């Protein structure tokens, strides 16, 4: 019964989306050739803009690195407050709710608000990344704390270890790979997401993408695209090596 209802609702939603929206389906047949022409105009990429692109890319990288760094610091503190094993439910429940609320705000919106608050440039970008990333990272860290096996902990305490020693030699070794994996994952997201920050004036390569596309300089936009792809691939390789080394 309820399954039929789900299908009906899904069907209606599909009909509504396709039928009512003015999405211009009639343009679809002409889109193929147009797209081809568009791609053609990107060839060959105009490599003369390399210096500019490199500067923009470096700024994006700086935003991602600093944003991640600040997010790590904030998350380390918030994770303790969001951990089910370390604090009572009256603390971790509201903290987790707060983190969920932070996660639900799209980055681009945060960035626009930050630009309004502190002006143009990389600073609003860094603040936006910090804010946005903390919502996820603090939750991941808290889960890493909660997933630590209790048996080794009990064993070392029984052997006479102090609280600080337990933290260092029983809890941290179990948490470390998870924390590393989550942090690198979040950094990768930060890097990808900060590529578009320039569109709202929050610094980085996004500004160039915006400028070139708006002024129909597709050959230059192609160079930016290639640069972004290389950066992301480079990091992916680095990440693979890192995960192999610390598992």
């Amino acid at each position, binding site marked *: 019964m309820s399954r039929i209802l789900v299908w009906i609702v899904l069907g209606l939603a599909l009909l509504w989306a396709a039928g009512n929206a003015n999405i211009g389906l009639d343009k679809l047949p002409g889109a193929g050739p147009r797209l081809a022409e568009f791609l053609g105009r990107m060839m060959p990429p105009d490599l003369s803009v390399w210096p500019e692109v490199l500067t923009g890319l470096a700024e994006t990288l700086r935003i991602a690195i600093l944003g991640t760094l600040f997010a790590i610091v904030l998350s380390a503190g918030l994770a303790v407050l969001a951990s089910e094993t370390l604090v009572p439910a009256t603390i971790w429940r509201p903290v987790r709710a707060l983190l969920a609320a932070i996660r639900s705000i799209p980055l681009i919106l945060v960035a626009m608000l930050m630009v309004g608050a502190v002006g143009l440039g990389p600073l609003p970008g860094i603040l936006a990344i910090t804010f946005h990333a903390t919502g996820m990272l603090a939750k991941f860290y808290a889960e890493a704390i909660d997933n630590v096996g209790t048996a080794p902990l009990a*064993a070392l*305490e*029984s*052997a006479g270890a102090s609280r600080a*020693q337990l933290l*260092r*030699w*029983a809890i941290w*070794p*179990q948490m470390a790979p998870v924390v590393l994996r989550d942090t690198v994952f979040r950094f990768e997201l930060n890097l990808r997401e900060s590529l578009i920050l320039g569109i709202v004036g929050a610094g980085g390569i996004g500004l160039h993408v915006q400028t070139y596309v708006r002024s129909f300089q597709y050959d230059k936009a192609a160079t930016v695209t290639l640069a972004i792809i290389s950066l992301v691939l480079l990091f992916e390789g680095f990440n693979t090596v890192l995960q192999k080394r610390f598992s």
Partner: protein
Amino acid sequence: MTHALSLHAISHCFDGAEVLQDVSLQIAPGECVALLGPSGAGKSTLLALLDGRIRGWRGRAEVLGNRLPNNRAPERETRLKTGFIFQEFALVDRQSAYQNVMNGRLGRMHTWSSLWGRYGAEDHLKTAIALEDTGLTDLAQRRVDQLSGGQRQRVAIARCLAQEPELILADEPVSNLDPAHAERILELITDAARKRGITVAFSSHQPELSRRFASRIIGLRAGAVLFDKPSAMVGNDDISELYHGTVPGDGLRVVS
């Protein structure tokens, strides 16, 4: 200190169910005692209680001359004198065998330098000896999650020896080993204990091995002491009564 362990009328409830009932017993320093009893008899509970990891029990217990508190963990001083060998080993998986054994000595170190992994010569020496005694010297740098079950069990024993306890409590230290290994491990623990004058209490499901390696056997059923006598005087009828009329073959694990 006339007794290494002295229990008077120990009782404990888990969620209203009486798990230990009026247990009284004494163990002399240097003695090696086996704890037998069907599954659920309360062996693990009793050992954990003596290790100071259970709260809210009733009665009076003295461990190595110190009164055991029932509402908090014992003092560090007491904890490091009592070594515990956990049934599931309770090793830190991502650390080397060497570090795991070294962990047993944390209670004897200065907290600050231990946090940076700077250990004294004495700590390195005792760790090396414990690894040597358990035949793990060649595996010392291997991560423990890359060791076999029997090797991990030996690491757990080495950690306990490196701690230099005066009392060893072992919860089924040979439960997941084949008969030959089980024998070797029990020999290892009891030999090391004899050499160092350590008191040992271990639980087991193997009456034959227990009779061979312990000087005394305590039969526990439904949380109460059923018999408590020298190994030589424990007969097959005692064993069969303990397990409700079933006498397990040597090396077989009884599941009631």
